[in-house]
């Protein structure tokens, strides 16, 4: 619910909160009816997300589908969590302040925390835990990369402004940039996106039958091992990698074929080999919808990442057993708190039929209606639209400030959760 008419000129210093690129080179502008639109750049993902924001009044909180005042919804949510033996705090679509708040709720309720997008993030984490890796950031790619190998998926599908973000502009010394799309199914679409942002780049696409095989061969060739079966194209790519001044391998951990861990490990091994003689680094493109922020806050406060149970024996980190899908499949949890404050995040898993506390964007309201199990819905404000905040960008090394774009009355995730927690602990 807007109380002041939002400004109809582009907002200064706005940051787009709708994917992990957290673009700061676009802005937002409202029309006279209070409908926001992206200006200064095109992004289908942001535009789709912004379509959920208008000046319409927000729905009220609800308990079991019936509208209730906020304090009653808070009581019901707390009661539901007091009765739960093992809740999952999932989704985790929010900002750092929200994460600080749900950390306390996790402790009070003995919950497991896991983000909606955590399959890819967990694969990336497991490789980190096993062997580490070498990474780079958007500005480094823009400034240094002369070869970018995109592995396994078309990153522009989910992160439409990626190429704009890493395209060198006229202020940098001109340099040749080669881009290779390796095992990217929708290569033509990605070529079109690249052509728009980086018209001078040379783009080649290599289709692969088996991505794991392909990058295993590449890794071996880069290490100058004999691979009889290697094709000319594979040898040429390995040579190109060995000759690059600053090679970037870019992948989306959530879009790699399974086992994603194996693919990432091979890619990091390739980077490691290259770094013995030249420079190379990886860019792992994931962590949208608050997943990266949730991972960071959980790790710094407790020492352990997501998929950790705040259990009676201690903090039990288990990247397999404590994932959302595994917990649901095992019937391990008896309550689900789902946090999704941008509206564009995944909805609570459709197959979850148990107790639900949905702390979400107003557009999620219908999902807490008509359920047989106890259901609480609390609408919340959106960081980066309704209030300021912070989210981590994909590479984890940059924490972006989010600003409010309009005034409205809904509480933030942090405020709602901070009301629930003391009532659970009591």
């Amino acid at each position, binding site marked *: 619910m807007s109380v002041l008419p939002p400004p109809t000129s582009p907002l200064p210093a706005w940051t787009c909160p709708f994917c992990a690129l957290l673009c700061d080179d676009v802005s937002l502008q409202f029309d006279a009816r209070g409908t926001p639109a992206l200006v200064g750049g095109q992004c289908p993902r942001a535009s789709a997300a912004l379509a959920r924001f208008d000046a319409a009044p927000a729905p009220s909180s609800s308990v079991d589908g019936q509208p209730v005042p906020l304090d009653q919804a808070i009581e019901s949510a707390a009661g539901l969590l007091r009765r739960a033996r093992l809740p999952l705090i999932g989704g985790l679509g929010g900002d750092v302040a929200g994460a600080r708040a749900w950390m306390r709720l996790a402790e009070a309720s003995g919950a497991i925390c896991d983000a909606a997008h955590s399959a890819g993030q967990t694969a990336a984490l497991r490789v980190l835990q096993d062997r*580490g890796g070498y990474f780079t950031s958007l500005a480094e790619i823009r400034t240094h990369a002369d070869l970018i190998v995109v592995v396994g998926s078309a990153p522009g599908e989910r992160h439409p402004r990626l190429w704009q973000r890493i395209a060198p502009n006229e202020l940098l010394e001109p340099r040749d940039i080669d881009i290779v799309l390796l095992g990217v199914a929708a290569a033509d679409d990605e070529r079109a996106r690249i052509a728009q942002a980086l018209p001078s780049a040379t783009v080649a696409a290599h289709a692969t039958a088996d991505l794991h095989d392909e990058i295993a061969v590449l890794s071996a060739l880069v290490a100058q091992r004999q691979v009889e079966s290697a094709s000319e194209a594979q040898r040429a790519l390995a040579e190109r990698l060995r000759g690059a001044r600053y090679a970037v391998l870019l992948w989306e951990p959530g879009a790699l074929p399974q086992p994603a861990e194996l693919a990432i490990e091979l890619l990091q091994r390739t980077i490691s080999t290259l770094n013995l003689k030249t420079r190379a680094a990886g860019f792992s493109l994931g962590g949208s919808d608050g997943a990266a922020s949730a991972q960071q806050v959980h790790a710094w406060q407790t020492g352990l990442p997501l998929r950790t149970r705040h259990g009676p024996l201690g903090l039990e980190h288990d990247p397999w057993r404590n994932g959302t899908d595994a917990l649901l499949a095992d019937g391990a949890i008896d309550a689900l708190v789902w946090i999704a404050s941008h509206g564009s995040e995944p909805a609570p898993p459709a197959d979850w039929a148990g107790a639900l506390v949905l702390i979400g964007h107003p557009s999620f309201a219908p999902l807490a209606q008509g359920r047989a199990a106890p259901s609480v819905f609390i609408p919340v404000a959106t960081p980066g639209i309704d209030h300021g905040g912070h989210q981590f960008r994909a590479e984890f090394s940059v924490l972006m400030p989010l600003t409010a774009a309009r005034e409205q009355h809904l509480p933030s995730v942090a405020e709602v959760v901070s009301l629930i927690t003391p009532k659970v602990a009591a």
Partner: protein
Amino acid sequence: MSTLVLRGARVIDPANGVDAVRDLAIRDGRIVDLAPGEHPDRVLDANACVVMAGGIDLHSHVGGGKVNLARLLLPEDHRAGLEPLPLPLNPLEHASLGCCTPGTLATGYRYAEMGYTAAFEPAMVASNARHAHFEMGDLPILDHGAYVMLGNEETVLEMIARGEDFQRIRDVIGWTIHSTKAMGVKVVNPGGISAFKFNQRALDVDAEHAHWRVTPRDVVRTLARAVSELGLAHPLHIHSSNLGVAGNIASTLATIDALDGHRGHLTHVQFHAYGTEGPKKFSSAAQQLADAVNANANVSIDVGQIIFGQTVTASGDTMRQHANAHLANPRKWIGADIECDAGCGVVPFRYREESYVNALQWAIGLELFLAVKDPWRIVLTTDHPNGGPFTSYPHLIRLLMDKGFRNEQLAKLHPDIASGSPLAAMTRELDLNEIAILTRAGPARLLGLRDRGHLGVGAAADIAVYRDQADREAMFAKPVWVFKDGRLVAENGRIVAVPTGGVHYSEPEFDRGIEKTLADAARKRGVLDPARAAISRDELCACANHGALLPHECKLSVGAA
């Protein structure tokens, strides 16, 4: 407000030249004088105790990107075999664990239990400043602050390379301190982190950066002068070139020379005091470095003592961390190039008594502690967690205070070190006054914290009360009482209150016109533009969990030495 008196303790307050049995009165979070005839509301019998100001760690990696990467890299630091570490029994403590990579919450509890009341993160990446402030905001009890890393961002290197007006470079540095809400400025492997991005593998103090053609000497000289002129209390904090390299004493001495008489604080010097003598071409240059420190009053140091056992090294020095990554134990590591501004390398490490190199490192650190004459210019650190976790400070204090204990430890090491180290012949034992200087009074002075690190009237009542025991390790591990701003926060090694600490930051003067240059640089490389990069006071307050803001005014003085 109520008044508390600590009665009958030996008050060791070297900043005020006090070492005497006397009462210490506290009111409204401050040390006060009791009015004649005034009766305190509460008296604590501190007979047979030693009272010091709260400890101040001026170099401890307690918050920010690389610390959190270390946590992600080492889940095993939070398990005992297959079992999770047990949760804290104290209901005041949140679940937060770990040994060399503890969570921020555990970090605050463990420091406070030892009588420390402030810790400073020495390597804040400018583009990651908010993250560092968030993590430090989640350090309970402790005051905190950070040094922003400079001297490897393409913008400043380019300005030095182009021979731009010094004043404009100084404005960039002033602006960066202001925008990141930094307490000080650190340079890590001057120019070397950037050079590694251009595939340079080594950079001596007078060698040129492969791309920008500037030398570490240029970088150190420029930054040290800027820090002086901006009026920062803390001198330029320097992680010198060639960390860990045999023979690096030459670059360490050259770095001191590069200061051109400006003040400089050389950090974790144990890693920078190696010679090339002996059969292994790796020897102690501790005496050479100590001689240089003794001879140059503009230089202060912290040691970065190593402690045997498992730890993890987290550094901005990608060039050197990459070179040392093959030594990782367990065998895994993380590196990153960050935003044309910095880098980070996280390499787990296990220091072993039976290793010649590790034993030598251990001895070098202690030699430095014992050979530097002015205790006000040497600070007790393990470069947590790089040399070892901060929880080993009580052990380190005993090594410094107890020659018998020290020699016992030395005898357990690699035989060449046990028999050949000059340490065996060093008879100095630090006394309690010197320990108080090395762990609170000295760092407070080096940071310009006027109301911390001492117990004079008007000082903040950050106080540690230790039971005087012959076993100094036991004594310093669990103070009887610890007060933070007058509030009892720990008693006999148990947390009893969890206030939120404050954040120290400097407020230098600079010409705002520099924002145009920075906006151009941001557009060029796609880094944060000045409008977004600047952290406001309100935002800092949110990051710091609404702890007190502790700004430090800086006076610009052009041409200051």
